[in-house]
């Protein structure tokens, strides 16, 4: 799967890219905020987007909503340090396919992606 990784922390983008490559996916791009993610989504049209929530410029839930307007079949997995129920419900209702709470491990990422296929 071609993946766009979105996170404002370079360390987290490195972690996610590393896990995704190890489980056989191709990271085609990295975005550091919601606005950047929308632009890169349109440009790269990836099969999957991982989306952080708390980011400068534009948060992940707003970016998710815009990406779903660009492509209602887009596959977006939220990847956030905040896992309160309201945030999870808002994300899923806005079209996210899964919600991963940080810190995560390789198995959790594998599990979320396997449910998409």
């Amino acid at each position, binding site marked *: 799967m071609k993946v766009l990784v979105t996170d404002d922390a370079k360390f987290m983008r490195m*972690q996610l890219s590393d896990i995704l490559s190890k489980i056989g996916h191709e990271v085609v791009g990295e975005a550091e905020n919601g606005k950047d993610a929308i632009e890169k989504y349109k440009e790269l049209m990836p099969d999957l987007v991982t989306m952080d929530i708390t980011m400068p410029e534009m948060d992940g839930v707003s970016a998710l909503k815009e990406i779903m307007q660009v492509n209602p079949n887009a596959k977006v997995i939220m990847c956030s*340090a905040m896992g309160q129920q309201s945030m999870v419900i808002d994300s899923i209702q806005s079209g996210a396919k899964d919600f991963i709470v*940080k810190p995560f491990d390789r198995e959790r990422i594998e599990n979320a992606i396997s449910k998409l296929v």
Partner: protein
Amino acid sequence: MREVKVESKHNFIVKESINGMIKSVMDIIPTETKVDSPSLIKKEFYKREMGVLIGLTGNLSGQVLIEGDKDAFNFIAQSMYGMALEGEMLESFIGELGNMISGNMITNISKKEISLDISPPTVIVGVSKFTAFENGIQLGVNLSENDKITIVLMIKEEAVV
């Protein structure tokens, strides 16, 4: 009577935030950590080598500061990700650690009907002095015999209810 209610709600939120913070630290850092009893900071506070500052909004208004030296943060990076970090990557990790600890704290207390949000982290490198905050509560987190980080909750007095 109304003022008393507001005060007690504020105290409840502060207490739950501290408990939520302790649980968050214990859940996130995989090694055996020992958290000191919370203590009040009445005067200025000096941050050591590195730190991260995160804004809190919602039912509580203030900031979370997590500070320590390079070795302490690398001890955590090693225990969570099996690697020691340097330079920009270490700074980015510290920002994300602050995000994870504060984010999980918020998730923990959301179960008690307390609604908080966090701002993206600001990483601070170098010794700095923190002053002019109304209430500071400090939590020492002992990672090993020699490694320790400190979490400071800087809270504004007024309650948002």
